[in-house]
């Protein structure tokens, strides 16, 4: 422990030469100057170690005792730091670094969004930027409550937002709204009609009267379940039957035959790079972009633009708002190339099958399907014919 303390406060090794060096030792003791590692190598030479802070004034003691004082070495932190006393560039750099740390720590450098699943973080960041929170803004001057309130006004899908400032990092915690389930308006009256032509295979009436029987062939628009219930009059009554309007409800499944077509040109236009390219660089500092290329134009008619951005990232993965961006423009010319027919047909078949499944929804199934392809007017047309089992009915409000 003592060695650590001596290292921190610093020590000086002294060599005292004179007729009576012990007098120097006694004077040090009288003055309260602490010393250790006393050695007496020769009769008139004395070596001892004193603390760095006690070094000043020992020449006077040596002179009074008729001795000469020489420094044999220095150890510890203060002598080490004093070595840099005349390294002005280093001191200026240190001062600038300290200033940068003190000043930059007052600014928000990173804005992080947490808790979002469906709302993109970029959308939230854009609203926050409009509200005044962006990389480079002065942190203590922010009113986080006002910012979150203002951003929430424009973000309908969010239920809650909190902005926490942690030094250079602004943490934005959000909670999204739970989607409202689709409500069926049961007060609306009407019929269930056929959506597609087909043969009814199964009827399940929950409300209303069945208008067709199983096995019937229906066309689009035909009423399947009528939204009115016949109320028979009492026995022996001479009153006519009454019809009570209801909301028709139920399921009507049937066999349908769907036909879908898609086509693609047999000659496609592709890009052919000419080999000419141009790169421009820009620097983004705290959200402000500095262009190095000023307003120089792009000398190509047709070109691809490829952008690469390199962000300054700390070892922990924290991305700082300093980035270098390179934009490369590659010139190309359009060239017509023939499309491989088999691949085009396969692609169209796959696309049509996906469209059919999407059309049928979760309740429908494909019983069988077949494709046919025709070349006509420089294009390939693929037709899908499929037999399906699906829900035929669709509610149509009355009147």
């Amino acid at each position: 422990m003592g060695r650590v303390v001596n290292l921190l406060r610093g020590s000086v090794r002294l060599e005292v030469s004179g007729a009576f060096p012990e007098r120097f030792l006694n004077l040090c003791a009288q003055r309260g100057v602490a010393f250790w590692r006393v050695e007496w190598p020769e009769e008139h030479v004395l070596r001892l170690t004193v603390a760095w802070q006690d070094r000043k004034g020992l020449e006077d003691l040596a002179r009074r005792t008729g001795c000469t004082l020489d420094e044999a070495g220095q150890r510890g932190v203060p002598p080490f730091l004093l070595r840099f006393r005349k390294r002005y560039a280093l001191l200026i750099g240190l001062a600038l670094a300290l200033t940068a740390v003190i000043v930059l720590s007052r600014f928000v450098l990173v804005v992080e969004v947490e808790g979002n699943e469906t709302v993109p973080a970029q959308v939230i960041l854009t609203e926050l930027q409009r509200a005044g929170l962006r990389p480079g803004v002065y942190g203590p001057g922010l009113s986080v409550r006002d910012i979150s309130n203002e951003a929430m006004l424009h973000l309908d899908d969010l239920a809650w937002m909190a902005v926490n400032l942690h030094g250079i990092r602004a943490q934005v915690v959000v909670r999204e709204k739970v989607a409202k389930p689709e409500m069926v308006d049961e007060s609306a009256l009407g019929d269930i009609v056929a959506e597609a032509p087909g043969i009814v295979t199964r009827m399940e009436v929950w409300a209303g009267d069945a208008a067709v029987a199983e096995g019937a062939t229906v066309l689009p628009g035909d009423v399947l379940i009528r939204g009115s219930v016949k109320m028979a009059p009492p026995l022996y009554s001479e009153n006519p039957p009454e019809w009570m309007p209801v909301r028709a409800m139920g399921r009507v499944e049937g066999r349908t035959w769907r036909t879908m077509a898609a086509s693609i040109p047999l000659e496609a236009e592709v890009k052919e790079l000419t080999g000419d390219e141009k790169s421009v660089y820009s620097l983004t500092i705290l959200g402000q972009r500095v262009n190095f290329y000023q307003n120089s134009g792009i000398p190509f008619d047709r070109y691809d633009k490829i952008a690469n951005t390199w962000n300054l990232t700390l070892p922990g993965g924290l991305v700082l708002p300093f980035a270098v961006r390179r934009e490369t423009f590659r010139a190309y010319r359009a060239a017509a190339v023939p499309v491989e027919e088999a691949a085009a047909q396969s692609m169209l078949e796959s696309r049509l099958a996906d469209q059919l499944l999407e059309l049928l929804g979760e309740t429908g199934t494909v019983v069988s399907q077949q494709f046919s392809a025709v070349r006509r007017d420089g294009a390939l047309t693929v037709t899908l014919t499929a037999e399906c089992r699906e829900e035929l009915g669709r509610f149509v409000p009355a009147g």
Partner: protein
Amino acid sequence: MERKPKKEGLLEKTAQALDLPGEVVGLPRVEIVGRQELRMENHRGILAYGPEEILISGGKLIIKVRGTGLELKAMNAGGLLITGALLSVELT
């Protein structure tokens, strides 16, 4: 010729007359802890120093400490601490 013993000093006489401990009136006090440590209060300074012999002034007394590997561990105006393998302490 037989050496004449030193006269008692004024401080010693005062301490005896008033029945006071000697160190209260400034007389040197030497304390030995085992064979490794010697403490002294009310010294008047070091007269000679070496790893085998250290001479300390105690006013009218001179304390001669003999031993091996002697080292002056700490010293201030009132006291000092010597460590090492002590062999003898002699008063002259």
